[in-house]
């Protein structure tokens, strides 16, 4: 056969590129579904364009673009949903605080998130600037003060933009939006939830920047439920049906995962992650999420962690994979140039690509139920289909450690030097051992000798200079409040040392010295000298003591030659 071997083994057909397409969008802006009367599942993409230019809603059929229409606002997410059983399904594009609904590819309705309360000072200031009572700079000052007092995130989106905009944009902002400031939160994520199995209509679930989640009836666009949580939702996965029993798994910006059930009012996070959660999907009644440490966690619906996969590099996103015909389910993890499929126990498949990937989407495209759309960083898109004969029979353990017998030993090459040395070792083994033992003994002996010398000479003193080896020791006599302090100095330097001073320092609150500075005129080598001073404890009733330092200093040296630190005993009371 002419087919290359690896292609034959692949579980996916060879990728086919979409014609002339250049798509840059996040994976949240992609959906599959029939949207026209032909019932053929299309690929729908809300294309972000480039800095607000060229924002388009694009629809692909087969390998070609079928249609495109302009979008007025930057899209953040897109969902394909059914809101009428008798007609074709619709698309909802989330842009800013609004959902734009398209039916038959024509704009059909616009739903805007209800406005939250506006800070009174803020709305006053905007009113004033519109009525020309204050100028733009004053508005900026007011907003800046509010930013400090109330927090940036609590201001309206328009004020936030104003604060970060340049002069020209600020003027435009006042002109265009000054009269209609609203505090509608930006939509961060969107999901859908089936109403019931008997009535397969979708309920839209949206999360906003103001930590709210709305459940919206997709026929009348009324809010069915509002849920307030403690953190900004960024990703929602829905499970079950609205009328019977549902759960919403909400990933938040604070790396928490909440679970909201039907008829429960109190929401506690079920997953609290120490590191940032980057994506979350549901597969096989499990929550699968990734963290920045390149880990994929499989957790139960209660949040109990069941397994963890360590990945070699950054995981860009996760995508659920199901193949009902063979009851296969897995999660597709997207890496830089490859995708890997995992279930809760094994690594099931790896597919490599020549170009860096952007995202993948798995679902029904055209007539094939198990199609994988692969988008690359360069904007191209390829289509692959899961092969009918493919299975997950070959499984690999995830955190694979090579088996002991598979590890290669580093055996050195038999060079001439190696052979010579080996021969020497064979012939002279006994002598080599003896020489080694003798040297080892020598080393140990010298070590012991040096240690002994050190312990006998360097007790409790620190010599800061190696050039002038002077030893110092101090005796304290008496019980207090008067003590006698005797300092012994012994120089072992080759020359005699001249013109030094012994300085005695301590907390002046505690002790008084008879002679705080003792001149040391001469230290002859090898001779021991003693100096004495009296010290008085000022207040024995305090029962305080502190360290006293004796420093040997020379006028021409920045650091003391030698220092002794003396721990003073507690003073007795004076004998009156």
């Amino acid at each position, binding site marked *: *056969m*002419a*087919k290359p071997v690896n292609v034959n083994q692949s579980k996916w*057909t060879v990728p086919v590129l979409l014609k002339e397409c250049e798509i840059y969008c996040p994976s949240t802006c992609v959906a599959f579904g029939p949207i026209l009367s032909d019932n053929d599942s299309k690929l729908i993409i809300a294309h972000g364009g480039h800095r607000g230019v060229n924002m388009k809603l694009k629809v692909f059929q*087969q390998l070609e673009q079928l249609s495109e229409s302009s979008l007025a606002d930057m899209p953040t997410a897109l969902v394909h949903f059914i809101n009428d059983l008798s007609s074709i399904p619709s698309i909802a594009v989330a842009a800013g605080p609004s959902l734009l609904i398209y039916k038959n590819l024509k704009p059909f309705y616009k739903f805007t998130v209800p406005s939250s309360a506006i800070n009174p000072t803020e709305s006053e200031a905007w009113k004033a600037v519109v009525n020309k009572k204050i100028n733009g700079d004053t508005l900026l000052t007011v907003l800046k003060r509010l930013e400090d007092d109330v927090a940036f995130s609590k201001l309206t989106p328009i004020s936030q933009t104003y604060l970060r905009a340049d002069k020209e944009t600020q003027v435009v902002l006042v002109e265009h939006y000054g009269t209609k400031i609203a505090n509608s939160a930006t939509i961060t994520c969107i999901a859908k939830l089936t109403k019931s199995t008997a009535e397969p209509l979708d309920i839209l679930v949206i999360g906003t920047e103001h930590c709210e989640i709305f459940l919206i009836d997709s026929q009348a666009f009324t809010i069915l439920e509002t849920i307030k949580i403690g953190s900004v939702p960024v990703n929602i996965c829905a499970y079950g049906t609205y009328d019977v029993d549902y759960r919403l798994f909400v990933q938040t910006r604070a790396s928490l995962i909440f679970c909201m059930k039907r008829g429960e009012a109190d929401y506690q996070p079920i997953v609290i992650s120490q590191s940032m959660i980057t994506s979350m999907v549901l597969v096989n009644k499990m929550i699968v999420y990734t963290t920045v440490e390149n880990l994929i966690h499989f957790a139960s619906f209660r949040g109990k962690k069941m397994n963890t996969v360590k990945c070699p590099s950054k995981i860009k996103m996760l995508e659920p994979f199901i193949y009902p015909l063979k009851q296969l389910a897995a999660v597709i993890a997207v890496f830089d140039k490859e995708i890997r499929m995992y279930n809760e126990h094994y690594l099931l498949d790896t597919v490599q690509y020549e170009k860096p990937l952007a995202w993948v989407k798995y679902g029904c495209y055209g*007539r094939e139920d198990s199609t994988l759309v692969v988008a690359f960083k360069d904007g191209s898109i390829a*289509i692959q289909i899961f*092969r*009918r*004969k493919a299975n997950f029979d070959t499984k690999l353990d995830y955190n694979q450690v090579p088996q002991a017998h598979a590890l290669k030993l580093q055996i050195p090459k038999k060079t001439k030097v190696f052979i010579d040395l080996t021969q020497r070792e064979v012939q002279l083994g006994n002598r080599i051992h003896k020489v080694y033992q003798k040297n080892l003994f020598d080393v140990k002996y010298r070590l012991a000798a040096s240690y002994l010398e050190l312990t006998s000479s360097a007790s409790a003193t620190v010599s800061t200079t190696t050039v002038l080896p002077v030893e110092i020791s101090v005796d304290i006599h008496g019980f207090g409040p008067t003590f006698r302090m005797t300092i012994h100095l012994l120089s072992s330097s080759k020359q005699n040392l001249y013109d030094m001073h012994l300085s005695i320092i301590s907390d002046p609150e505690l002790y008084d010295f008879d002679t705080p500075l003792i001149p040391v005129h001469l230290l002859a080598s090898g001779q021991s000298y003693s100096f004495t001073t009296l010290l008085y404890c000022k207040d024995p009733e305090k029962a305080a003591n502190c360290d006293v330092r004796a420093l040997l200093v020379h006028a021409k040296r920045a650091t003391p030659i030698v220092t002794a630190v003396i721990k003073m005993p507690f003073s007795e009371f004076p004998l009156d």
Partner: protein
Amino acid sequence: MGFFSSLSSLFGLGKKDVNIVVVGLDNSGKTTILNQLKTPETRSQQIVPTVGHVVTNFSTQNLSFHAFDMAGQMKYRSTWESYFHSSQGVIFVLDSSDRLRMELLKDELMMVMEHKDVVSRGIPIVILANKMDIPGAMTASDITVALGLNLYRSGTWSIHSTCALTGDGLDKAMQQLSAEITKYMESRRT
């Protein structure tokens, strides 16, 4: 063609019964083609996606065909292979305009051509590149290259462009199939 079979067809003596199986992806036009092969008065007007399989009978000059029209949707594709061992020929229908599924098609075609009941018995395969009327449809030679058939020499296969709506190309394809099947049956007899 052997002397006796041509003689029997000359006298219009009972045509030989043969079984064929018609496979291909969904929406490729299998049912439409078989409908076109029937006599005008027996054709049905409405064609809906096939579920499971349907047996259609029609005849050419010397053969009387029992064609198993298989369903092409993904969930039915695994049923195709169980019909190969009882057939004397295979018709593989493909949609020449479906570039998206060309790779999948290649997979499915190879599975048919390499199936043990096809290879070991050496039954003929006729590939119909249908929907040639659609603008932008691939030609039979493009498809031969795209499917890697030019490198595939073993077995008896041939490819024909067809249009099921008008019947274009069908006659020629069926003549070839009849000839191959007759050859096959004669080789079996000796």
